[in-house]
């Protein structure tokens, strides 16, 4: 398992979360969470299922509202801006869903065109075609352009989901469990794609996962979410050299499994 090189990123914060709390009924999901994402880095948020990892990134794009705390994305307080400002912010923040969330009544081409034509109303047909072809080439699925989502494999669906997000050229990418439900070889392909996206499109990313192979391969920095709080943050070796028994148990369980 190759560990991703740790690079010294600029200290420009593109995401800044302070004292974030979120609960659903009596269940405290996120408790006083603090987190920063620096420009150009891939940050992996690791944690067991149900620890609030997906909730965290859904708050970042305004799909969920925080109970309290401050969430600043590209200089905007997500929970305090108008809907119009939120839509403008979402153009700069791509979100790749766990189950890809492709529009199943549309072909791959229509899926990719959908965000494009709605956000660039004056775009010409030639420009649209060029953008779609380029992005499909970037994710290695040019041949799937006229297929329906139901005709694609799980890995292909993930790639198209990422392509649909990238077509708007976001500054930040949020990946929700990008390797969940995929075979090990396809997982490696998706890990490579996440790294390629970081290099080619100069994005800053948060990758939500419980897959340690993925975390090691794509993460410049790892943050371990346990019981609604970040137990530790750092490089892969720093995190798993941590003395917290819960962190060690997570590591051991993943490799025994």
């Amino acid at each position, binding site marked *: 398992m190759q560990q991703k090189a740790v690079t010294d990123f600029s200290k420009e914060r593109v995401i800044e979360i302070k*004292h974030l*709390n979120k*609960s*659903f*009924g*009596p269940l*405290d999901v996120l*408790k*006083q969470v603090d987190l920063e994402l620096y420009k150009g880095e891939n940050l992996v948020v690791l944690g067991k299922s149900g620890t609030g990892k997906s909730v965290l990134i*859904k708050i970042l*794009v*305004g*799909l969920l509202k925080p*109970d*309290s*705390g401050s969430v600043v994305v590209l200089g905007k307080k997500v929970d305090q801006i108008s809907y119009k400002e939120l*839509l*403008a912010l*979402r*153009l700069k*923040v*791509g*979100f790749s*869903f*766990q*189950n890809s*969330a*492709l*529009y*199943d009544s549309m072909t791959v081409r229509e899926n990719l065109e*959908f*965000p494009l034509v*709605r*956000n660039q*109303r004056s775009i010409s047909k030639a420009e649209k075609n060029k953008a779609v072809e380029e992005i499909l080439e970037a994710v290695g699925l040019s041949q799937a352009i006229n297929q329906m989502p139901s005709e694609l494999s799980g890995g292909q669906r993930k790639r198209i989901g990422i392509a*649909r*997000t990238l077509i*708007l050229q976001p500054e930040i990418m949020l990946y929700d469990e990008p390797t969940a439900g995929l075979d090990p070889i396809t997982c490696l392909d998706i890990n490579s794609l996440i790294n390629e996206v970081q290099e080619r499109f100069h994005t800053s990313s948060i990758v939500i996962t419980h897959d340690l192979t993925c975390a090691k391969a794509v993460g410049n920095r790892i943050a371990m979410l346990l019981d609604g709080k970040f137990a530790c943050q750092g490089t892969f070796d720093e995190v798993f050299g941590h003395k917290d028994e819960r962190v060690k148990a997570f590591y051991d369980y993943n490799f025994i499994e």
Partner: protein
Amino acid sequence: MKKRGSNPAKTAKRPGKITRMFLTLFDVGQFIVRFFKEGFLPPYEGRELINQCYNIGYRSLLLISTTGFITGMVFTKQSRPSLSEFGATSWLPSLVAIALLRTLAPLLTGLIAAGKVGSSIGAELGSMRVTEQIDAMEVSATNPFKFLVSTRVLAATITIPILTFYTAMVGMLGALLNVTVNEGTSAAAFFQSSLESITFLDIIASTFKAIIFGFTIGVVGCYQGYNSSKGTEGVGKAANSSVVIAMFLIFLEEVISVQFFSLFRSV
């Protein structure tokens, strides 16, 4: 910043049934207000609106035609014995025309559309909700309410009145067939007699009812689907409740509108 434990969601008692019903009604009210606020403002989703009109209107034609034709024919057949007792079978065209236009066509079309269109909208949006396709639209800086809800509600409101008049017309053809076979009445005489009995108020009332029914079917289907949860079970529930609630509201609206328009009728 709130302290832990002060979250109202955790400390508040679960509201009772009556309170929940009023909260839902308030939520539906907000949903409708949002439709009027966003549905008529640019950017317009013209292509999707046409697509939905095609889905709701054109794809319901076969069912509507069959039902309308059979209703017209059977209604005529069932009405004949009563009229013939008074030697008034010549009134059949008028009776059928009035019954179809005032009540049968709007009600039949509304109920059929509630079953076919309402369930389809509820299931489609419900499925899109649980598979995060609606969230995917949100995060790609698209307003899913405008694209999914406004277009469907508007399409239902436009197409149901058209389908209603189509049902009335097909129903009249069914009645004509029956009358021609039994009484030997010509088509010209049949239509002259039936059209003479229809007033402008009948047309206005029928159009008004059909618009309200269409709007109801669209809003109920979209509301149930757009707010569905709990996975596949939620999709089924959204489809089912879209039909049940829409049908109940259509009957209620029919009763109210009959009372309302009877105020303007001399007989």
